[in-house]
Every structure is written in C-alpha cells, then in structure tokens.
C-alpha cells in the first residue's frame, strides 16, 4: 500500500476546565489513503468533533493539551508555525460544519465569503477569485448560481446554505475534507441530496474525506471505511461493509440495533442502556463496560487495545476473543 495521506498516531486531547481535566480524545490511531472516505460514528460527546478540530488545528491552544502525532502528506501538523497553520487550514484541509445557518457570516454574501477564502489561499485577483466562487457554486449544483452568488446566507434555504458551505470548503482544492455532521441540521429529503452531492464531488475531485456523523445510515451511504468512537477512543474500525454487516464490538452492535427503522408501533426499540461516561471521570478499563451486556470483571482491569479481527477489521474488546466471531 502507498503511504497514507493522513496518519494519526496516539492522538490525545485534554481540555483544562475549572472542574478539572476532560479527556476528550484518548489515544486514537488513524490512517487515511488518498481519495478514501472514512466515516466516524458515535454518540454525542464521543470525541468525533474534537478529533476533527484537532486535525484542523483549531482547538483553542490555551485550554487544550494535544499529544501524539498528526501527519498529513509527510508533514507534522502539530508542529506547524502560525503562518504555516493558516495556509494549512482551509488550504490543505477544509471543514464543513454542522449548522450552515450559523457557520456562514450573516453580514456577507456567499460570494464574498468564498472569494475571501480563495484570495487567502493564493488567488491573485478578485475577479479570478470570484470566477472560482461561481465555478464552485455551479459545481455544488446551486441553481442559477450567477444570481445566487450575491445572496446573503439568510436568503438561501438550509440545503442551499449547506451547498454554499461545501462550495466554500472545496474552493481551495483541499487534499482532505472534514465534514462535521453536515446533514444533521437539514430536512430528511435535503439530507439525502447533500449526501449524494458530497459523494459525487468526492469521486469527481478525489479528496480524502473524514465524515463524522451519528447516523449509521449516512455513514453506510458514503464511507469506504468506518471508525466507531466511544468515549474518545476508536472501539472498532474496518471497511464499511465489514463493520456494518459483522459488528464485532458490543457498542457497534448496540448502535446498529438502536434504530426506529423497521420497528412497529408499540414494539420496544433496542437501545443502549445508560449514558456515555463522564469524560472528566473516566471509568477504569473499558469505557463501555458499565453499559455493556457482555461485561465481566476482567473488562474493568485494563483498557482494551484494538486487535485484528477478521480480514480488515479491528476491534477493542476483550470479550471478542473469548466469544469468537460474535460478541453479541
């Protein structure tokens, strides 16, 4: 295999707060090939968004401690200087935010905002930057882009705003696109359009993508590989079809069965009991043990490591080995 575009080794993110240190990300390892789409799924507070922000280097430096290594295209992201970092952000790596209504500045037109970003990343003249903005708006299939370019965000619908956001993120031709639940704030019908658009753009432009979502269906739709996060750790990872068809970790299994689709009225829906752990006071050993139907006393002894299980699938569960192929 060729060298990966992105390599994350033992990434740990701690937030210092008044109440103590919060362990948001606890030693994750990732590899992403060029043009590959990684879906990261997990509950709220599992560290998905924090991981993305660490990759982009936009966590507030005063309050965060980051350790480990992030290597993009052979460069260590964590040791970039301020100047390099501002070229890196938006230039090599772009991000799409969850809420397009608030992630676009209300006092500037979408054209101005895209133009501003394009100019920052090397466009020579304003006219060229604007032409690029127009090209991008066409690419994300905003109808009548020529007049939409001068619209303010509040004049666009939610789906159009998210398209504009995507155009903004892709306008600089990034190598890596980070998408932080880009469809969560949208209507169901618009969600699908945006997912399909992203998938199409990804194939066309070939940038690697990390797609964070808590919607398993969305992840299945777009991802080549999937990583399941829980309490700041990756508990299972592998190709999308492996992880979704043969989930090895009890948490993945729980996520996959927690769905209303196919359930009938009055029928009890399977869900994972309990709440994610308090990140300021992590439980001993496996963070999922308190909620796990298969937990034994052994589970609280040590944090389980990711172990190979199947052809291209890794799982962090000691019960997995004991039970063979099926943990649940």
């Amino acid at each position, binding site marked *: 295999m060729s060298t990966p575009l992105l390599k994350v080794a033992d990434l740990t993110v701690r937030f210092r707060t008044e109440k103590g240190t919060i362990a948001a990300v606890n030693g994750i390892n990732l590899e992403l090939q060029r043009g590959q789409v990684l879906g990261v799924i997990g509950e709220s507070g599992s560290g998905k968004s924090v991981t993305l922000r660490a990759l982009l280097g936009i966590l507030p430096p005063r309050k965060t401690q980051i350790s480990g290594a992030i290597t993009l295209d052979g460069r260590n992201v964590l040791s970039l200087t301020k100047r390099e970092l501002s070229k890196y952000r938006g230039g090599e790596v772009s991000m799409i935010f969850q809420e397009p209504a608030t992630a676009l500045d209300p006092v500037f037109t979408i054209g101005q905002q895209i133009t501003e970003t394009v100019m920052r990343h090397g466009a020579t003249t304003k006219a060229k930057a604007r032409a690029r903005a127009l090209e991008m708006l066409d690419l994300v299939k905003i109808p009548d882009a020529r*007049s939409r370019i001068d619209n303010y965000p509040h004049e666009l619908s939610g789906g159009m705003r998210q398209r504009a956001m995507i155009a903004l993120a892709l306008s600089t031709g990034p190598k890596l696109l980070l998408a932080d639940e880009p469809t969560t704030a949208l209507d169901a019908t618009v969600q699908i359009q945006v997912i399909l658009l992203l998938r199409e753009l990804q194939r066309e432009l070939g940038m690697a993508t990390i797609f964070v979502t808590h919607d398993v269906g969305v992840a299945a739709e777009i991802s080549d590989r999937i990583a399941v996060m829980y309490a700041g750790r990756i508990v299972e990872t592998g190709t999308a079809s492996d992880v979704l068809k043969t989930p090895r970790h009890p948490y993945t299994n729980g996520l996959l069965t927690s769905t209303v689709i196919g359930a009938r009225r009055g029928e009890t829906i399977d869900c994972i009991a309990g709440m994610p752990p308090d990140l300021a006071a992590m439980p001993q050993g496996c963070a999922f043990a308190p909620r796990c139907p298969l937990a034994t006393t052994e589970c609280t002894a040590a944090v389980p490591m990711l172990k190979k299980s199947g052809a291209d699938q890794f799982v962090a569960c000691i019960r997995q080995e004991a039970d063979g192929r099926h943990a649940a």
Partner: protein
Amino acid sequence: MSIVNSEGPQTATPISSLPVTVMPRSVGYWQSVWQRLCKDKVSMICLISLILIICASFAAPLLTSYDPAIGSVIKRLKPVGTEGHILGTDELGRDMLTRLLYGGRTSLIMGFVPVFLALLIGGSLGTFAGFVGGRVNAIIMRTADVLFAFPSVLLAVAIAGALGAGVGNALVALTIVLVPPMIRITESATTQVRALDFVEAARASGAGNLTIIRVHVLGNILGPVLVYATSLLSVAIIMAAGLSFIGLGAKPPTAEWGLMLNTLRAAIYSQPLIAALPGVFIFIVSLSFNMLSDGLRSAMEVS
C-alpha cells in the same frame, strides 16, 4: 389571481417551459435597514430635523450677516419677531438666531467629538477585551468598572474642573466619561459574536485573528455599537451643555447653547421665550438623537 404564480401564464404550462424565476437583486443588510428606517415616520422626522440643524449650524455665515460676538447696547433683549432679528436679541444685544446657529456648531462638536473618540478608544479596547478574553479582558473590564462607579455627570465635572475651563478640556472630560460604556457595549457584543460558528468556520478556512476581528467581528458588532453611539450623542450634547452652563466648558463670548442658557438666566422674567430658546435646541437635538437611535435599533432587529 394572487395565488397564481405572478410570472406564470394562467393556462397550464409544462414546468420546463416556465420562465426561470429571476431573484430580485439581493439587498444588503445596511440597505434593508435604511429601507425600514425610511418607513418609520418618527425616525425620519428626527433625522430631517437633525440634518437641518446640523447643516444650518455649519452654514451659519451664509445664513446670517450678524457677527455672533458683536452686539448693540441699544438693542438688548428685543423680543422674538423684531425687525432684523427674527428670534430677538440677547442680553448684550447680539442676534439670537446668529448665536443659536454658531452655538450649534460648538454644541454639536462638543457632542460628536467625544462620542467619536470614545467609539475609537472604547470600541477598540472593548473588541480587544472581548476577543482575547481571559486575564486581558478582566484587566480592561475592571478598569472600566472603576470609572463606572462614579456618576457620569459628576465625573465629567470633576475632570473638567481639574483640567480647567475650556472647550478642549471639556472634550477630554466627556471622552473619558463616555469610554467605559463604549467598552462595555463592544465587549459584550464581541463576546457574543466570538462564540458563533462562523468565527470558527473562518478560522477553519485559514483566517488569522486580525482578519477575523476586522472582517467578521467588526462586521457583526457594527450595527448595535452604532445604535448605542447614536444614543450616546444625546447624552454627550446634554453633558457638554451642562459643563458650559456651570462654566467648565465654552467660555464667553463663544456662542454655545449651554453657556447661552446660563448668560440668559437673568432675562428669564423679562424675556422668558428668548431665555428658553437655547434649551429648546438642546432638547430637540438630544431627543432626536435618542429617537433616531431607537428607530435604528428596531430597524436592525428584523431579519
């Protein structure tokens, strides 16, 4: 009829042949605020009277042939409507209209300049404090709080008194008094904007702190801050007149509304109307700025 698509013909037409809906040219934020302001009668009346007073004051030499400092002893305290002196004359026989117009210059300058300086100084300190946060914020804000602890009029009188009478010193005193509220309003606006997603999005697209402050923070706090500055104008004009009234601002023979109120005090029984005229102007200008600020605020609130 109203239900029917306005540009679509009434007969059934295949969708593909319908003309493409042309979006009305997008209206900028300030443009739409202006449009809404134009619909507000009270604000428009205030705005027009302010423009009239300001223009008349600065065009004073063109509007009157009298000298504001030269009077005639035999023409003292002529009533309103006297031939050659439409608004009468003051206690030294100077033309009231002339004095009011020239006085407007001083009074308006004494209102505008401190607010403008406070906007620059307080605005930058407040934006900086709000954006940086943490200890820097605490230092700036607590210092502003110390100045806040004094009643503003007393503080202005104390500073002007310590510096000595004169327009320049009064401007300094008023600026010092107006800076803390300006810091507070910009700080709170900046803190709110800083937490919004588009600031993080701007950072994610490679914008540095300066760009974020210049483009995204200022662009978003400008509205509320300007509204507040407009309301401060009325406060500043009243305080400036107050300082001159007690002898800490403009010195005779300079024409200034507050000072004129003071010197005409003696005539309050013989010519009450003339004695009240400078007060009327102070009242109109200050009220207009206040109402205009309210109108602006509500014009900005929509959308």
